[in-house]
């Protein structure tokens, strides 16, 4: 009984507590926004871990897919549920945004998954460094395409998402963003855990070990690669959608290679092929970013330096291909890990 429902109970309690604290405004907006960025970062790092850790590819354009998700979900939201200079009057009653919000975020995810095909299809033939290039190029192509779309603001960015959030809060007053970031973060980790521990997911690990051997063992590598890339980029799109609504403003410049590098850092900090490592490192990384905020530009010297040192002494990352349950066996008493 305890083993079966422990995680569910903890998550429901944590989510409820968080919502209550945010509702009563007992934690400051700053901490709240840091917590929400933490959720977004968790989604980014775990989803990139599927491709870079479990599948053993080297994708370094993850922020491009985040960009697609952010733009699609915010444009849909502003078009359907708010009054805007570009799109005119809302199509639906703004109060309906309350129910449609998860659909908006998922729509961003689906669009990003389709953009993931840009990388998935070349990956049939290429691998390793050549694929790394394709992902970088994909990141640049996406950003550059959005910069050239003058209708949605081009490089000046796109805003108006706050009014959608306000409409939701007018309908029922709850800290909706906190709730949805929490829900989607939990959902992402759950989906990825189920994905990699399924029979299908064993094929992903097989590709990582040896692609040719996997193919001989009747693993349909092309299908697995396509689906894994699409799942990974789709989840990045979800992260992007949430990011856009949390900030209330998106511009293509914030999804450049530096953002992709951040995602890479989180994956390798946590350990390739370890979901709990990715979650842990995303949380740590966000805290680190905020803690070092006072240093200004020095922050971006300290963080890479820490990572270089980490690579020298513990190159496999914090968790190093293991899950929490492998490192702390007593945790298994409370929860079944596999």
């Amino acid at each position, binding site marked *: 009984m305890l083993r079966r429902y422990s995680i569910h109970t903890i998550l429901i309690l944590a989510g409820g507590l968080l919502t209550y604290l945010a509702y009563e405004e007992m934690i400051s907006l700053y901490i709240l926004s840091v917590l929400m960025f933490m959720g977004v970062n968790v989604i980014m790092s775990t989803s990139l871990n599927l491709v870079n850790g479990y599948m053993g590819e080297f994708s370094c354009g993850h922020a491009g897919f985040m960009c697609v998700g952010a733009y699609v979900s915010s444009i849909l939201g502003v078009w359907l549920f708010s009054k805007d200079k570009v799109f005119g009057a809302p199509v639906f009653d703004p109060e309906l945004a309350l129910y449609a919000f998860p659909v908006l975020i998922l729509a961003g995810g689906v669009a990003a998954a389709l953009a993931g095909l840009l990388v998935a299809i070349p990956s049939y033939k290429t691998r390793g460094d050549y694929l790394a*290039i394709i992902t970088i*190029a994909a990141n640049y192509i996406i950003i*550059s395409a959005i910069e*050239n779309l003058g209708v949605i603001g081009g490089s000046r960015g796109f805003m108006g998402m706050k009014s959608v959030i306000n409409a939701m809060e007018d309908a029922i007053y709850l800290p909706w963003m906190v709730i949805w970031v929490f829900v989607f973060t939990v959902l992402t980790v759950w989906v990825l855990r189920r994905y990699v521990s399924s029979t299908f997911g064993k094929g992903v690990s097989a590709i990582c070990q040896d692609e040719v*051997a996997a193919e001989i063992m009747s693993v349909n590598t092309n299908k697995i690669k396509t689906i894994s890339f699409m799942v990974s980029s789709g989840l990045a799109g979800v992260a992007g959608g949430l990011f856009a609504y949390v900030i209330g403003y998106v511009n293509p410049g914030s999804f450049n*290679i530096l953002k992709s590098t951040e995602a890479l*850092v989180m994956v390798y900090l946590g350990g390739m092929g370890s979901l709990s490592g990715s979650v842990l490192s995303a949380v740590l990384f966000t805290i680190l970013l905020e803690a070092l905020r006072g240093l200004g530009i020095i922050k971006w010297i300290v963080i890479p330096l820490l*990572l270089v040192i980490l690579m020298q002494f513990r190159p496999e990352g914090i968790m190093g291909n293991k899950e929490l349950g492998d490192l702390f066996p007593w945790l298994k008493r409370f929860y079944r890990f596999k």
Partner: protein
Amino acid sequence: MLASLLQNVINALQWGSFYSLIALGYTLVYGVLTLINFAHGDVFMVGAYIAFFVATFFLTTLGFPGWAALALCIPLTMIVTSLVGVTLERIAYRPLRRKGAHRLYVVITALMCGLILEHANLAILGASRKAFPPLIEETVYNVGGVAFTNLKIGVIVTAVLVFVFLEWVVTKTRVGMAMRAISYDKFAIPLMGIPLDNIIVITFVLGSGFAGLAGLLFAMSYPVLEPYMGALIGWKAFIAAVVGGIGDIRGAFLGGFLLGAVEIMVVAFFPSTFRDLISFTVLLVILSFKPTGLFGIAKTTKI
């Protein structure tokens, strides 16, 4: 029509020269170590800054004439920049290589070293842009409606000379033979009495030295320096190297010119904001059809 076409060709050759010079550094290191040295673009940036300091020192502090300053600037910049490259190799890459770490970890280290170089520069020198002092007087020649300067010709000629030199080093000399041997089999090489680490240091010296030269030429052609200038050019030069077939000197050289040509032609016919979009799409298409690049040889994978 013909004149404007020729004009664009000259511009493309000059713009491609920078990509070529940087791509050569990427491809040298990759060919020997199969390591993507992501810090290389930032080594180029450091090279440009070193050139800036050396040039201002000679021009304003010592009051040298322009040509003398340039003549001293070229070797000094190359030496100091190659020191930066070798330092990176010694501090960051070599310990990892000794431990036999997975090459992805080395790539991440390289990426982080690039970030450190960028932001250390930003922290030390501030965000203000630096204006590069003019070293030589630019003379504009005009032949049949096609305008070009002595600087442009100099850049193109330098790129070609560097290519010929590197091709000679790699194919004709003993060091080059050792380099090719390392890329063929890293484990058998020390057994043959070839000093592995020395050859790798020479590779880094060559790659970073020519990145420094590229930085100097770039600063002379576009005399505005900023800390992030290396990042974008570095990524693009890397893409050029891959399109040419990474690990192959000729591939990097031609890939650089190809990328330069595509970018200049896009700017000539479309709004300039489309440059990245179209050039990257072209490269994506090339890589989709010829996954190992133009000169790359497909390796057969065995189990």
